[in-house]
């Protein structure tokens, strides 16, 4: 499957190169959500001139005077529909479905508290979306499973606290997300609709009191049970409060290797998890507060937004070196989506207060920012739609 995908990418590249002197597809299209303006923009980027623009703006939501907030975006596998999560409702958020091209509303379904990031499995065709619940209560939330053709909510899978970053393995069998407030990577079996594995991401997760509560089970091994009264003196009470350290915010599986990359927003790290060993195998110090990340389709580069410093990092996955750190056009970098030809990365940047958001476009060959497209306020969710010639 991965080999086929890679070859398909080669085919696309090869066909594009025939009869054309340029190296880039001419037209790239992507959607980006402006969370504080209740809008989704269709952005067009001309690969030749390397200039982008807003092609269309779609108002979303039904309660414009209330706090709604389009947050996450995705595209159906056939490219015919786009989906946007509306974070706030009464009180539950929802998932809305639109037709690409016409951008006409199709349907919606209510989900949990602050539905955020979503992905569609290539195996089941189902959509898996995390209910981020950032209202401040430290309680387990859920991943909702939606049948996207009829927009029926099939199940809610209980997961960690403030889950975020729903991305699915290339074969469609495993959904990965992180639990921000419990420092966990969580894997869902997309067919059985259940959590299959949880991994503590802390540095001392395997051998210290920090990992006393792995999953739902308490590890009492560091406690002195002794005789008579229980001695609590050896317990690490600070760790028991589960103060998160890594505060992971995103997980993206590698397209061809059994690896998942994680943004350690709280620890300023990029983590690599080997899903075969089910352990953290690499930790790279990164820019401040990495938030979203995405691996290029050829599996060579990792593009990371640094929310805390308004920049984007481009990493070489083979060497583990950051090839470039590119300042974003404004503060609060958010999402990243990469064109299928791996030529460009599109970065959403929120901005602060009344300033507009933006999509910063980075040429992944020159590692330079080539254009900035201003959007509505708080540009967040971003997803690539299509390339046209």
């Amino acid at each position: 499957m991965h080999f086929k995908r890679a070859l398909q990418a080669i085919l696309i590249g090869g066909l594009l190169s025939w009869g054309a002197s340029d190296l880039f597809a001419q037209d790239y299209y992507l959607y980006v959500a402006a969370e504080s303006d209740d809008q989704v923009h269709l952005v067009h980027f001309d690969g030749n001139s390397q200039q982008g623009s807003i092609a269309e703006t779609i108002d979303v939501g039904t309660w414009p005077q209330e706090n709604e907030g389009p947050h996450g975006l995705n595209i159906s596998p056939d490219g015919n529909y786009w989906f946007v999560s509306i974070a706030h409702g009464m009180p539950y958020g929802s998932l809305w479905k639109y037709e690409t091209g016409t951008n006409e509303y199709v349907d919606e379904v209510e989900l949990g508290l602050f539905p955020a990031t979503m992905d569609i499995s290539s195996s089941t065709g189902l959509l898996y979306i995390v209910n981020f619940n950032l209202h401040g209560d430290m309680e387990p939330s859920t991943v909702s499973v939606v049948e996207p053709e009829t927009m029926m909510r099939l199940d809610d899978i209980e997961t960690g606290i403030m889950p975020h970053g729903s991305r699915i393995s290339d074969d469609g069998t495993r959904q990965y997300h992180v639990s921000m407030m419990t420092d966990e990577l969580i894997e869902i079996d997309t067919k059985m609709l259940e959590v299959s594995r949880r991994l503590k991401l802390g540095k001392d997760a395997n051998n210290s009191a920090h990992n006393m509560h792995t999953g739902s089970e308490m590890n009492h091994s560091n406690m002195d049970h002794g005789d008579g009264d229980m001695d609590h003196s050896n317990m690490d009470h600070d760790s028991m409060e589960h103060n998160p350290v890594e505060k992971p915010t995103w997980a993206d599986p590698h397209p061809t290797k059994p690896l998942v990359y994680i943004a350690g927003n709280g620890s300023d790290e990029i983590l690599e998890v080997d899903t075969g060993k089910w352990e953290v195998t690499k930790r790279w110090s990164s820019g401040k507060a990495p938030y979203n990340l995405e691996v290029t389709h050829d599996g060579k580069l990792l593009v990371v937004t640094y929310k805390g410093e308004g920049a984007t990092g481009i990493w070489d996955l083979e060497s583990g070196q950051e090839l470039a750190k590119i300042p974003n056009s404004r503060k609060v970098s958010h999402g990243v989506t990469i064109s299928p030809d791996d030529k460009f990365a599109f970065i959403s940047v929120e901005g602060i207060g009344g300033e507009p958001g933006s999509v910063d476009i980075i040429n992944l060959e020159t590692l330079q920012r080539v254009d900035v497209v201003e959007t509505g306020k708080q540009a967040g969710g971003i997803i690539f739609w299509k390339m046209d010639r």
Partner: protein
Amino acid sequence: MGKALKLLVAVLLLSTGNIFAQDANTLKIVIEPDPVVVEVGSELQLSAKLVNAQGQALPDTVLFFSRNGADLEVSREGFVKANKPGNYTVIAMRSGPREERVTRNFEIEVPYPPIAEVAFKQVPENVYAKTTIDLHVEVTDEMDLIREDPDVTFRSSNESVATVSHGKLLALKPGNVRVTATSESKSATLNLNIKANPAQTIEIANTETSIRTGDVITLNATAKAANGRTVDAPITYSFVAQPDDNLGQGAEGQINQKGKFVANVPGTFILSARSGDAVTDQVIRVRERNVAKDVELLGHAEVLDVHTSDLWVWEGVDGRDYAITGTWGANGDTYFWDVTDPTNMVAVDTVRVDARTVNDVKISEDGTIGVLTREGASNRKNGIVILDVSDPRNVSVISEYTDGLTGGVHNAFIYEDHVYAVNNGRRYDIINIEDPANPYTVGRFELDTPGHSIHDVWIEDGIAYSSNWKDGVVAVDIGSRNSELADAGGSPENPVMLGSYTYPSGRNHAAFPFKSESTGDFYVIAGDESFPYGLPTRNNPVAAAGWIHFIKFDGWGNPDEVARYQVPEAGTHNFWVVGDVLYVAYYNGGLRIVDISGELMGNLYDQGREIAKFEPTHADALVPNAPFTWGPQPYKGNIFMSDWNSGLWSIKLVDKPQQGTN
């Protein structure tokens, strides 16, 4: 080129990798049993096979997914448990890449259990000739579940004594009759002895025969026997109208079956009370209510570059009058105005916080502390910001408080050193600000209804009135100062729910208590918010929808929605009551000022109760020449209001020339 061709051939072969695989279009999933019928409360194991065009079963695993897992549980392996009757769609899937995936949607029927019993309920003790009663029938199935909206047919054994039409029994003359109610194969019979109607006369006690539009009178009719004895025969009420304006006039008034009447228009009305052959009429003369006043525009503090949200007007510690206004979908600014001279409102300070919307602004009773609510903070922690406003010309931020409020705070209220902050999800938090630099949460109030939500909270006399969308208005004792209304022992640390009222639209956005000075009745006034046509934009000043609901509480357990104020072409937002006057921001309908004195019934909009309206507009507003009024505040004889499009306004009411009031 040779290499390229080889590569292309290789790619084409590999990219059509299923060429030798089974064509998914020729495969189908066979479910057994077929059809699938499961009794409610029962379980069933489904089996599924993937079959090719030749009818051969393939070894692939088929998974099941229920589209309604609460009412029909289906495990991935096809184990079914039926919890509720109905027809359900279930998905069976052989997963895989899109071109290999096979999906079948099939139906599972969970039939309604057979009906076990049909029973008549609420049968009156006496049924009199020439009266009509409602027939109440309860249908119960074999699972002991009451059937909702069952099909019931009625039959009378003697149509000359009584007939049944649309669920109502019309008693025609004295005699015995057997009424049979049938649903499916079960029936119930009701043997009635229709008695001669003892009512010989009807007495009307009401003496008010000259009233204004909007005044409610109660006929207080009594059925009397020939000997003058009061009898229990039911009385029905009706009226005939002769409006002064008879040129295509609409509904002239209304009368309910409690004998209460209200007129919408001036004219002469003949009110009738009837039981059997006994009828008594009363003639009522209705005149104009005549409460309208003119509006004098005092001032406009222009905010034309960003949207304005809520306002609060207060007397500062220096004795001058000030207003605070928030901004919406903008840059986190809050403006402070000196409004001592409402004809010349002057901006005196601006506070900017990390937010896109400062939706609500409140000032403490002593005029020293302000609270801003935040949405769209760049760090997504939102919460509230506490201000020192003792010098409104030099406002400073004392602290930010975000614990449990990170999802955003839409509205808040300050009451006795506590902030009641609406968490944008499901509850309001109660935060002690005795030391405003170190606020801390002391309590929370949250409903326990499924999917509950909350929008706003308002506090008066130690009772918090929250607006809760589909859960309606909720009253909570947080330290009642009014023992007549509440004495439940509540406190900020221990909020105690007193009562609530819901209504079907689920649009409850605001709530305000109202003790009528003219009648002593106590209401909670509930306002809707609805945007059926979206939000106004520069070129599209659309209308909002929704209305004001008057819910009369005769004790917290006895709410009764008795009246409304519905402007048909606009929708409500925030409102305020002083005395027996309602001030309501009606978005695209501007500000409406309404006389709510006396007993309330029907749609006040139709009754000439509107005292005045004011539509704040400005040619250079964000939406030009269009009002979108957010909230009012009557203050020291003037009325201040914020308008989403254009900023802060002040007006006052003046008597119309050559026209008095009644």
